[in-house]
């Protein structure tokens, strides 16, 4: 292990689902203490804490410290929509790369169970039409000029792909959800672990065509945390710690470069493609090398486009790629063997670390019933509007 490499020394996620008896900080503390225990280190070893909670008040890091240890280290509270957890990890990695410390803790947590559809606030009734805001609008635009809600936004993302390349039918998208729900049955930490038939998925309540309820990510509670360490420091730790450490071969964060259409529909493609390219380059890994991928299937329609964006298939070939069975757990490039956000659940700020936990779990050979045998390299992807994309490539320890 090179001195300037970065490793995940410990990582954990709480059970995703409903936790009515735990507050946000309980979940964050559980995840953080779990990651420290998994890493066999303590809060006293940490040189930085980066944390995120989208629904919080911007000081989740300090709230966590009060529950698990106040040592005076720098705290970065970060926020990047659904990419918040990945941003926290990215920040801790950056602090180590900058030589500011040799170990850091990243935490993401959210309580969302019972929260409805995330989207814009309803339009207000008006007594006098008065233009306001950057569009000079006299009334709300959501529902009148397109949609601001997430299921509809990502439905359009998938449909746009269909318009460009063809073959993206309602049934195809539903079959992506069918795969993820099938995968979830092997994940004891998933919020939902019920296998669903294609018919059940297609006949479920329609939210935003072509996304039915079971094709949407599940709002739930959850926390996830990771301890990162420099290669130099890892060398001084036990053989057991070295063996279980997972190499962060690439850690990339991107935002939207300007694209014509991104002004009217978020462009989730360009920044994901940019992040993936940079990550493959950083890691010296190509898409064919990946043993598993956790990608941001906030909706079934999103998973399809990310096959292409992450270059798991030739450009324009996502439909054929999925139809080939490649992304099922017994396929050539298993995608979302955790069950994905559609069944594992999507506690927003936790997601960007939980997907890395899933990859690490397999690379360490600790994934039990859902182990992808012999997994050596994995990729975790997350995207938050509008917009941030995190891509991490992880490799099994050489020991």
């Amino acid at each position: 292990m090179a001195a300037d490499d970065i490793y995940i020394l410990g990582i954990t996620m709480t059970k995703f689902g409903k936790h009515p008896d735990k507050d946000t900080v309980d979940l964050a503390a559980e995840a953080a203490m779990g990651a420290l225990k998994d890493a066999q280190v303590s809060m006293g070893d940490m040189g930085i804490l980066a944390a995120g909670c989208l629904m919080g008040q911007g000081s989740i890091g300090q709230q966590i410290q009060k529950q698990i240890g106040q040592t005076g280290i720098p705290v970065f509270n970060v926020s990047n929509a659904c990419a918040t957890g990945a941003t926290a990890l990215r920040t801790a990695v950056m602090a180590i790369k900058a030589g500011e410390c040799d170990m850091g803790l990243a935490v993401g947590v959210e309580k969302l169970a019972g929260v409805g559809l995330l989207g814009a606030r309803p339009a207000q009734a008006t007594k006098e039409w008065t233009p306001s805001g950057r569009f000079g609008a006299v009334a709300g635009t959501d529902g009148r000029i397109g949609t601001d809600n997430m299921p509809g936004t990502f439905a359009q993302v998938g449909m746009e792909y269909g318009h460009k390349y063809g073959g993206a039918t309602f049934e195809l998208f539903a079959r992506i959800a069918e795969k993820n729900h099938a995968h979830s049955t092997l994940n004891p930490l998933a919020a939902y672990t019920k296998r669903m038939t294609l018919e059940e998925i297609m006949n479920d309540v329609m939210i935003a065509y072509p996304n039915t309820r079971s094709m949407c990510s599940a709002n739930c509670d959850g926390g996830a945390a990771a301890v990162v360490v420099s290669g130099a420091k890892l060398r001084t730790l036990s053989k057991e710690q070295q063996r279980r450490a997972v190499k962060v071969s690439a850690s990339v964060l991107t935002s939207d470069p300007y694209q014509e259409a991104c002004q009217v529909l978020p462009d989730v493609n360009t920044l994901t493609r940019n992040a993936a390219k940079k990550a493959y380059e950083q890691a010296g890994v190509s898409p064919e090398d990946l043993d598993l991928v956790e990608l941001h299937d906030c909706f079934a329609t999103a998973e399809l486009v990310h096959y292409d964006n992450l270059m798991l298939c030739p450009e324009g070939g996502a439909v054929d790629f999925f139809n080939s069975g490649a992304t099922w757990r017994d396929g050539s490039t298993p995608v979302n063997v955790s069950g994905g956000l559609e069944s594992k659940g999507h506690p927003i700020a936790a997601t960007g670390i939980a997907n890395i936990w899933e990859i690490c779990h397999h690379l360490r050979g600790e994934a039990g019933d859902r182990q992808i045998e012999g997994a050596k390299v994995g990729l975790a992807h997350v995207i938050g509007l509008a917009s941030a994309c995190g891509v991490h490539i992880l490799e099994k320890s050489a020991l």
Partner: protein
Amino acid sequence: MSTETTLSQVPHVGYLQLGVRPHLVANECTQCKARYFDRRNACASCFGSDFVKVDIPTEGVVRSFTIVTFASPGIPVPFVASIVDCGGTSVRGNIINCEPTPEKVHLGMKVRLATFTMGADDNGVEAIGFGFEPL
């Protein structure tokens, strides 16, 4: 409350130009020609800060759509949200005057801008919205 002809109209959004032939107007960057419907401090593409108004074609092709059947409280459903390619400029708008079903709306469908009333305020001023209807 009055049923008489309203005295005046305002567009739902500043970039809808009312009149004999309603159409959309964008802020175009003089340097790189990037177009924006909202007010911008500078150009997201080339960082320039000079803009001119340009008219957007009123006919286009549906590049993407969704039929929203579940929305935030107060927003009537179902409605069809879509992205329409109007001569190379992407425009966001609802598909209107068309049954909101996957059988009636389809990708690649040709549409044109259409306006509708959003009602009058207490001063009798009528707000006019826009969408796209099948050609």
